């Protein structure tokens, strides 16, 4: 009997001790309590309690402000550790939106590691601090962003023309009027969203002419070219300049050629709408430098896709580290979520419902966004190990003889059966955009097309002879029956429909200098020259492949 009394006594005491330990730990040593106790403020901090920002329509209940006291609604001038700093001034009031919608993380948590989302089983860790602006992509879509070079030139133009002297953009620049207060010129941080006065140049010029003084000294007329650049600058001011810059890099690396974003792009690779929301629990981090961060994985994926995704067909992105960083930054911003109507931003509605383009529709941007990934940023094609080579599309020898119809039709319909997709589709480009791309290619090559007096089809020659010659001289690169190999497929119906006979003959005759296609009008050490008749025979043979399967 005594044993039972000892048992009861001991286990009761142990229970008491454990309960007391739990109570003390919860009521005194919780991290958020310690942090709140250490905070000082002039108005006196309200009671030690959990604080949260609640927004039911956004499904947000963020308790970050229990530790980040300086950011809690209504708290101000909180002094103490770094964690107590107030939020940087931003457009969206954290008291209304909460924290996780921009920063990610686990809002309901009240422990640091859990709240920052860096725990197992939480699929959305917080964005790294240097990538905080990627959070804008949760809701917003920047519209009309140009290529990297154009944007850079636009930014430099705004600097060079000294617009910052009077105008404030993203907390930079602007001067306060000495006499009346207020800024000299309006804040231009959000012209991309709110619009601007189209007649600004005339008005500036008129004011400079009439007012004189500081006005006359600081404003001089702006060239047409520069005006266009400034328009680009204004169009891209949406309050997130670093993100827009990153997007311009994205639009110059040709990613949309294979990937779809917000319904526009190719389908060789996966859709990227939720690329920034990848669950780190489902990624393999072996071989990724920088720890178990989604952004590190993303960067390594760009550098060497096949080493992080087994069996990936994506070629490595051979750009400098800075561009890789920008591409990672932009991809992390691809994290759009479902939103209630009240919170849908106008830019997203314009993009998703009214089809307004996220990219500028000039030739350089379109080419950079859709074509540069395969055809090279200079249009001279790419050759990647393990993949078929992508032809040069801005080669001078090509542009000199390529008929307009061939170029337009190839881009519109693609080369069925081969890697080139047709781009005239809802997820692709519009006819006028394709025409812009073709014009851009001609500019890239810098060669005007030669006039061709002959009719489209004028060759009529011996098909059998052509076949034999083809077997000897062409099949090695262009494959049996012209199916394609190292060189493009010649039996392709789009190619043959769009090409004139002159084009085919001249291509064989002249070749493409600097590529593997030599000009067959000239002999080489390993083969003789082909006569005009022989070349025409080959062309007849190629024409005989029309109507066959590609």
């Amino acid at each position, binding site marked *: *009997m*005594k*044993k*039972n*009394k000892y*048992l*009861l006594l001991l*286990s*009761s005491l*142990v*229970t008491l001790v*454990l*309960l007391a*330990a*739990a109570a003390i730990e*919860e009521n005194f040593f919780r991290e958020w309590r310690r942090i709140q106790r250490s905070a000082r403020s002039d108005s006196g901090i309200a009671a030690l309690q*959990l604080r949260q920002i609640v927004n039911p329509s956004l499904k947000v*209940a963020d*308790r970050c402000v229990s530790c980040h006291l300086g950011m809690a609604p209504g708290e101000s001038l909180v002094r103490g550790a770094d964690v107590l700093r107030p939020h940087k001034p931003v457009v969206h009031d954290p008291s209304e939106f909460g924290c996780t919608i921009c920063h990610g993380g686990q809002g*309901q*948590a*009240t*422990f640091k590691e*859990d709240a920052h989302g860096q725990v197992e*089983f*939480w*699929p959305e860790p917080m964005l790294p601090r240097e990538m905080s602006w990627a959070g804008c992509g949760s809701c917003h879509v920047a519209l009309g962003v140009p290529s990297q070079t154009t944007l850079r030139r636009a930014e430099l133009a705004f600097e060079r023309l000294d617009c910052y002297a009077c105008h404030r953009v993203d907390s930079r620049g602007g001067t306060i009027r000495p006499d009346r207060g207020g800024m000299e010129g309006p804040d231009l941080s959000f012209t991309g969203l709110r619009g601007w006065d189209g007649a600004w140049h005339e008005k500036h010029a008129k004011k400079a002419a009439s007012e004189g003084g500081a006005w006359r000294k600081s404003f001089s007329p702006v060239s047409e070219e520069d005006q266009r650049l400034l328009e680009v600058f204004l169009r891209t001011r949406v309050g997130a300049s670093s993100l827009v810059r990153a997007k311009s890099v994205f639009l110059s690396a040709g990613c949309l050629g294979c990937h779809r974003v917000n319904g526009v792009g190719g389908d060789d690779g996966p859709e990227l709408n939720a690329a920034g929301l990848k*669950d780190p*629990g*489902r990624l*393999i981090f072996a071989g990724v430098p920088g720890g178990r961060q989604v952004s590190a994985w993303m960067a390594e994926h760009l550098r060497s896709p096949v080493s992080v995704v087994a069996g990936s067909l994506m070629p490595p992105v051979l750009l400098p580290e800075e561009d890789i960083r920008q591409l990672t930054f932009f991809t992390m911003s691809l994290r759009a979520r479902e939103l209630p109507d009240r919170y849908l931003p106008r830019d997203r509605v314009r993009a998703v419902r009214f089809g307004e383009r996220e990219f500028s529709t000039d030739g350089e941007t379109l080419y950079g966004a859709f074509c540069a990934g395969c055809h090279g940023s200079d249009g001279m094609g790419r050759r990647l190990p393990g993949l078929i080579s992508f032809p040069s599309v801005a080669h001078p020898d090509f542009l000199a003889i390529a008929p307009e119809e061939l170029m337009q039709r190839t881009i519109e319909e693609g080369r069925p059966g081969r890697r080139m997709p047709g781009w005239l589709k809802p997820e692709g480009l519009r006819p006028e955009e394709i025409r812009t791309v073709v014009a851009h290619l001609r500019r890239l090559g810098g060669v005007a097309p030669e006039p061709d007096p002959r009719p489209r089809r004028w060759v009529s020659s011996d098909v059998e002879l052509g076949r034999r010659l083809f077997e000897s001289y062409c099949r090695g690169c262009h494959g049996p029956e012209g199916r394609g190999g190292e060189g493009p497929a010649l039996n392709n119906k789009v190619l043959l429909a769009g090409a004139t006979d002159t084009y085919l003959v001249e291509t064989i005759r002249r070749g493409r200098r600097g590529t593997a296609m030599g000009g067959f009008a000239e002999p080489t050490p390993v083969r003789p020259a082909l006569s005009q008749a022989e070349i025409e025979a080959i062309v007849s043979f190629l024409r005989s492949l029309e109507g066959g399967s590609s």
Partner: protein
Amino acid sequence: MPAIGTKDALTEFRENLRAAPKRILETAFRTGLPTTDRSRSTFVFGNVFLHLHSVRTHRWSLRWLTTAGLGIATLAAFLITLVTGVLLMFYYKPYPEVAYQSIKDIHFVVPTGRFIRNLHRWAANVMVVTVILHMARVFYTAAYRRPREYNWLIGIALLVVTLALSFTGYLLPWDQLAYWAITIGANIAQSPREVTDALGITEWFDPGGLQRLLLLGSDTVGEEALIRFYLLHVMLLPLVLAALLAVHFWRVRKDGGLARPDDADDILARERREETYPVFTEQPQKTYHLAAIVRGRTPAVGRGPENTVPSMPHLFYAEFGVLMLTVAVCLLLSLLWDAPLKELANPNVPENPAKAPWYFLGLQEMVSFSAFMGGIGVPTIVLIGLGLIPYLDREAEGTGRWFGGPGGWPLVRLSLLFGFAAALGVEAFAIRFGWLREWFPNIHQLAITVFNPGTVLTALYAAFSIWAMKRHNSTRAGALALFTCFLCGFTVLTVIGTYFRGPNWEFFWSPADWPGH
């Protein structure tokens, strides 16, 4: 109207008001401090909460070696889950997505929430462990024998209800672990289709489909399933459990207390260390005054010197001791380890491997060979087998003794050896060489249903127990062998299912070898 010579009404009123506190206590606790045998008897007998207990307890029942307090430990674990469960109901919301959020809130924000939730989870697991150990104890001490056969059946029912409670609770967090575990469970419920499909009769007779539909309320695991499981978990099953518990305890009383060997008094006399005085040194003609209405067995009848002690306080010390020990253990576990919570349930992303709760993993291991046999067949055989034990073993030798009966500990030892060897052997064979479908791809499903590691193991165990029966010429020996083999098989299969099965239920020596993820 006050009588002449007594106080007037106003004075009466004042005096009554002043004496009220003391009187309240006196009328509530009428028997006074239980310091005499009579007052102790009345204390237990007359108290609504305590009178399920006998007024006197045999000293044998209070021995640690008799029961190890496992029954009380199970009850204690149940009480802990009950109390913590009710507290969790203040905040838990039984609708998909919202359920997950509410558990997150309980963990992060609710005062003491994390602690209470951990306690609930750990106490539930402790309850399953102790209920199995309690069943083993009752079996090995042959305490199911006459007149306690029916109580053994009630105990089996309690085991099933305990597992059902644990299973229904498993779904409530609505995380990946919960969702896919219950998806598997529901598909196991559907496994009779394996047989009806093979026979081609599913169209007319589909008990599998019906079971799954009743369980889920829909054809997928969704909000209907969640609300059903919630109802079962917080109301129906606890009520059923409480009712069965009441019968179980009442039966212990009616069956004359805990089972004792015939020579219990002699053993006690040898072990005796404390002074205790005998009561009822003469054979009483009747028991306590009121209890004389009921004819039944009491510890006092038919024996010589009494070896009972008042339940108040001795039995209660024992019960409270076990209760507090269980509480302390559960508290310690809760403070050290958090209850698991994975990502929000995602029907598009199956967990791989998707594992049932640990006590069903042995079953799932068998299910990986044959859904019907593993899910329904073998468990039914096991339950029926367990239920029949007291009706097949009607011997009397060894009741109340550990490993009592022909065969004894040596037979149990041999059965442990055979049980582990057979289970490990069958598993090793199946893991190394595969099973029928790998060698004969076109073999009829029924062939596998009939002949698979689960049935093979069952047959081996049955054969062994028949051998033991013949060898010792005793049904008890057969029962000892079979039950021990069952425990071994359960352990081996559960351990393999827990630690050695990875994605696609393939065998891996360690989780480090699992591919990907």
